[in-house]
Each structure stands twice: as structure tokens, then as C-alpha cells.
């Protein structure tokens, strides 16, 4: 398997806080890699460095062999990286379908037109994505009035709009009922395998993590302390001590 994403020696400090220290890992096409760790471990900070929102102090991020450190998020998106945020970021005053259409228009480079009417193009594509994540029945509603779990679904649909090679999902199932969580991640895993998308996700729900991830890496106070298959991680004494011991 070829690594879609390869991270080597990533570092980031905020003032005196070493949020991420010497983190290295790789994700292959079609693989579901879970990045877990207690609150404040540095997971979101890692994500932000992968999609260009934050500049790492040190380290290399390779997307299909190409170093992407220093590129802006929008450039990294164009290289095929989709992302969902821990605190959802959608266009609140626009409709659900329009949100997804924005991503589709942008992917096609058609957002510059000033005189056409927005919304006629990419309707079927948007609806296909929305039905995949189970949001088609709410396509006409404004994102600003949606339940939190539903916003996460819209975000996933938007992240899938540019046919990504890599999906970065920061707590994709927060705000959902336990059953929905597993269902959504099963869907993601299915897409990942069918299309060869590499998925890196964080998640606090251990049922989801251990049932859906192919591999798990564990972050604690900025450092990777363990990694391996779900079984290996489950039985790792260091992980039990700092992580599962505390919250599970």
C-alpha cells in the first residue's frame, strides 16, 4: 500500500505549551486511521498543521509524496484534502444544498461568475452527496437552524465534494446519538475502501474508534505514545494508564 499522507517529526508550540512534539505517522489509501488522546492532547493542532491552517515549527507533511508544508488551506484542498472541523464550520445563512453546491462550484472553478444565477448547476451532484450522508430531506433548510449532528453530516458532504484523496475528520460524530455515530463512520469506512480515500479521524467515542479504525495512534500531551491495530492499542499498558484508565 502507498501512503497518501506521510507525516515526519511534526512539532508545534504555543508560547510555553508544546502542543505537538515529534509526531510521525502515515495513512494509506483506503485506510481508516484513528488519532485518539485525552482533551488537549494536540489532536486538533495536528489536523490544523495537516491542512495548512497552522504552520508547524518543524516537520514534514507529504501528500502523495509532495511536501505541502507552507501551502495555504485552499491550495491543499485543491490537492485533494477534505476536512471537517471539531467546531462545525458551515455557511449558516445558506441552505444545506447550497452549502454543498458551494464546494462543488469551487471544485469546478465556477465561483467567479457575477451574472449567472447560483444554484442551477451541480444540483444532482449535491443531492447525491446529501443522500449519502442522510441529509437530503433537509436540503432546503438553512444550515443555521440545523441540529449539531446534522451540521457534521453537511460538513462531511462538503468534504467529499472535491473527490478527496485524504479526509481529515476532527470529531465527526460529536452531537449524534450512539447508533448514528457508528452508522456514519461505517458509511465513511465504506466510501474510503470503495474509493481508496485515506481517512484520518479523531473521536472520543471508543466504540466508534475500536469498531471502525483499521489502525489507531494515541497522542498524549503532544507525543505519540502508542500505535497499532485496535487490539494492540487496547492491550497497551501505557495507553491504559494515560487514557483508557482516565476516561473509560
Amino acid at each position, binding site marked *: 500500500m502507498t501512503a497518501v499522507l506521510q507525516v515526519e517529526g511534526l512539532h508545534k508550540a504555543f508560547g510555553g505549551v508544546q502542543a505537538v512534539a515529534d509526531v510521525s505517522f502515515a495513512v494509506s489509501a483506503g485506510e481508516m486511521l484513528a488519532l485518539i488522546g485525552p482533551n488537549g492532547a494536540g489532536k486538533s493542532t495536528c489536523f490544523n498543521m495537516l*491542512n495548512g*491552517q497552522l504552520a508547524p515549527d518543524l516537520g514534514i507533511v507529504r501528500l502523495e509524496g509532495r511536501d505541502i508544508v507552507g501551502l*495555504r*488551506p*485552499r491550495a491543499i*484542498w*485543491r490537492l485533494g484534502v477534505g*476536512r471537517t*472541523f471539531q*467546531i462545525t*464550520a*458551515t*455557511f*449558516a*445563512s*445558506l*441552505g444545506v444544498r*447550497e452549502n454543498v453546491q*458551494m*464546494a462543488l*462550484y*469551487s*471544485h469546478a472553478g*465556477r*465561483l*467567479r*461568475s*457575477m*451574472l*449567472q*444565477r*447560483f444554484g442551477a448547476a451541480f444540483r444532482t451532484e449535491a443531492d447525491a452527496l446529501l443522500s449519502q450522508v442522510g441529509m437530503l430531506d433537509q436540503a432546503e433548510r*438553512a*444550515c*443555521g437552524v440545523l441540529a449539531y449532528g446534522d451540521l457534521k453530516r453537511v460538513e462531511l458532504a*462538503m468534504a467529499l*465534494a*472535491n473527490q478527496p484523496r485524504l479526509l481529515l475528520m476532527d470529531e465527526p460524530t460529536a452531537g449524534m446519538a450512539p447508533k448514528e455515530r457508528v452508522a456514519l463512520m461505517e458509511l465513511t469506512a465504506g466510501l474510503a475502501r470503495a474509493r481508496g480515500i485515506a481517512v484520518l479521524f479523531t473521536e472520543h467515542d471508543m466504540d466508534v474508534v475500536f469498531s471502525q479504525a483499521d489502525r489507531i495512534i494515541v497522542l498524549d500531551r503532544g507525543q505519540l505514545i502508542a500505535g497499532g491495530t485496535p487490539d494492540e492499542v487496547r492491550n497497551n499498558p501505557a495507553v491504559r494508564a494515560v487514557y483508557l484508565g482516565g476516561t473509560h
Partner: protein
Amino acid sequence: MVGALGVDQAKLFTSVFFAGAVLAGLGGALQIPREPANLDLDLAIIADAFVITVVGGLGSIGGAFLAAILIGVAKAFCIGIGTVDWFGFEISFSKLTLVVEFLIMALVLVVRPYGLLGKPQAVQRIAADPAPPLTAPTWKIALVWVVILVAVPLVADRYVTILLTDIVCFALFAVSLHFIMGPAGMVSFGHAAYFGLGAYAAGLLFKQAGLPMEAALLLAPLCAGAFAIVYGWFCVRLSGVYLAMLTLAFAQISWSIVFQWDSFTGGSNGVFGIWPSAWLADKTTYYYMALACCGLGIALLWRVLFSPFGFTLRAGRDSPLRAEAIGIDLRGVQWAAFVLVGALAGLAGAVYAFSKGSISPSAISIAQSTDGLIMVLLGGVETLTGPIVGAAIFTWLRDEVARRTEFWRGVMGGVILVIVLLFPQGLVGGLKALVLRWREQRA
């Protein structure tokens, strides 16, 4: 949040307001020996105070102190130095006193987007109610209005026609301001810059360059747009109050140049004798031309709002983070919007200039910018037609009140206060809410 902790917010805000007012009053009283109380103190001092808090950085008392000293010293220096001769150029520093604080603010904000000692602001919009979806008036309703507006001069007198000409100019001005502050989410405190620069461009192209009126009218928006290219490039790098204050700084810098460049712009007197060509000399004909220009300008702006470009602007206002994450170059888009809006405000100014026959620096003043903001807020920011209604009512009211009483400023202020208290979402926003409630009750 504070409310959840058991603090009475109304009381808290009122006492903070009271304390602020006492301190401001004390400041005012203390400075009396320096400058006698006068009516223009309000806007001047508001501008100064705003500039100082923004240069210092919002929320930083130390920063405000530093900024106050910096600006005070700079002003004193400008007066002290007077006129100097540098390499054969005569530079009058005393003339700079009018703008020195705005120059400093522009420089500080360009280098330090959050002021001298300020910290980046948390993004506020997310938690607030999202803006309601926009709806454009249907073709039928728009057509009815066009017919009415075309018919008015046939039945009304000359005075009404002239007033309507003013109104359509200000309507385009207000709609362009609404475009940038509503859907695009960039509040401009200095929108008069583009209106005024368009007006001056028209006047100067006509008088100084000797172009025919039609050419001047067509080129003026391009000139205003050219200024918007420069100003906008800096402004879109900021957000929130800092952005608003930088727009104000550019407007004031423009104003002071126009105000002081006697030989070219006519200084405080302005430009005179800019009358339309013979075929437009008749007030009614000119009104139709103004209606066509401004109506098309408004139609264009509305059309753009519903285009992919307009949706991108709204998307960027709702979530800059998400916009960037789906490949949008938000700054570029906002910059383009700035230029578009500047050009159309310039068109409004040019049409206005030829309707009056003269143009004075007050067209670029803070007061003109504030008028625009009042028009938009009066009608309602969250609606498309609001700014037009606001412009119409404001212009009509000012005219009406000014003719009847000397105290028109006070009366205007009172009327606006009442409207804002009765309709916090603006007139059109409030009426829409009323209609909605009425329909729900009947259903």
C-alpha cells in the same frame, strides 16, 4: 454567559454606560479652556476617540494611552514644524494636522492589524443568529415600482422631481453600502469616500479636463473604482471594527486632500458649474437619466448577490474558515466586491454632482458616511429593499424637516431614534416581521 452567572446585565451595562458618560463629560469639561464648546465637537471627538482606541488596540487601556500620546505629540509636531522646504518641495506640515491621526491609524493597522497592543479578536458571528436568507423583489413588483417612479414627474411638480433625483442617487449609495456591510460582512465607516470621489472625478473631468458631461459621467465610476482598488487592498486584510476604522481613515485622508488642494479641487468651496449637457438640462429628463443609471446600478448589485460570486461573499461572511477550506480565496473575492461597490457608489456621486451643478468636500465627509449608515440601518440591513426605503425616508425627512424648522438636526435625531426603537430590525425588517405575524395569526 454572564447572565447565567446571576449578573443583572441591564444594570451592569447601564452602570458601565453611566461611568463612561461621566468620564467623557469630565474630559469634555476639562478641555474647554483649550477649545470652546461648539456643535462640530460631536463627530470630531467621536472620530478621535475611535481612532485612539483602535490604534491602541481594542480592549487595551495601555494601548489607548500610548495611542493618545502618540497622536497628540504627532499633531503638536505638525503644528510646530509648519511649512518646510525639502528638496525644492514645499511641504506644509500644519496642513497635515487634519489627517495626521488617520494617517497614523492607517499605517498602524496596515502593519499591526489589531492595533499597537491589541490581541486578535475572537470571531463573533458564529454564535449570533445567522443572517436570514435574502429574497430579491420579484420582477412584477420591481416593474410596478419602475412604472410608478417614471410616472411621478408627469403628475408632480418640479420640486418633487428634484427630491426624487436626490433619492435615487442616495438609494444607489445606500444599496452599495448595504452590499458591502450586509452580505459581504465588511462594515464601512467611510463609504462616502467613493461617493465623493466619484462626484469629484465627474466634476474635475468636466471642468479641469474639459471632457463632455457624458464622458465624465461614465469615467467617474472608474476613478472611484480605482481608488477602491487601492483602499480595498488594505482593508480586506482586516476584519471587524479594525476594517471599519481603516475605511474611515481612507475616507478622511481623501477628504483632507480634497479639502486642502485648493488649486485643483477648489478646496473648501468645491467645484462649481458642473451642469449636464443641453439634452439633460431639463430637471425631468435628468431625473429619468438618474433613475436609469441608479436603477441599473441597483439591479446589477442585486443580480451579483445571487450569482456564484455573491454567494461566495455571503459564505465568506458566515465562515471564513470553511470558505478557505473549500478552496476560496476570500480576500480576493472581498477585494473585487470592494471595487465593484466603490465604482457604483462613485456612479451615484457622479449623477448627484451633475444634478446639483456643484460638489463640495462635504460629499466625502464623515457626516456623509454616517448618513449612508443611517439609511441602511433605518431600512434594515437584513433586507434588500431596506436600504432603498431608508434612503428615501432619510432624504425626504431631512428635506422636509430642514425646510420647516431651524432645529432640524434635533428633530431628525429624534425621529430616527423613535424608528430604531420601534423597529430594531429597520423599517422593512420590522414590517416583514409584522406581516409574518399577521399571517400566522390568520392561519
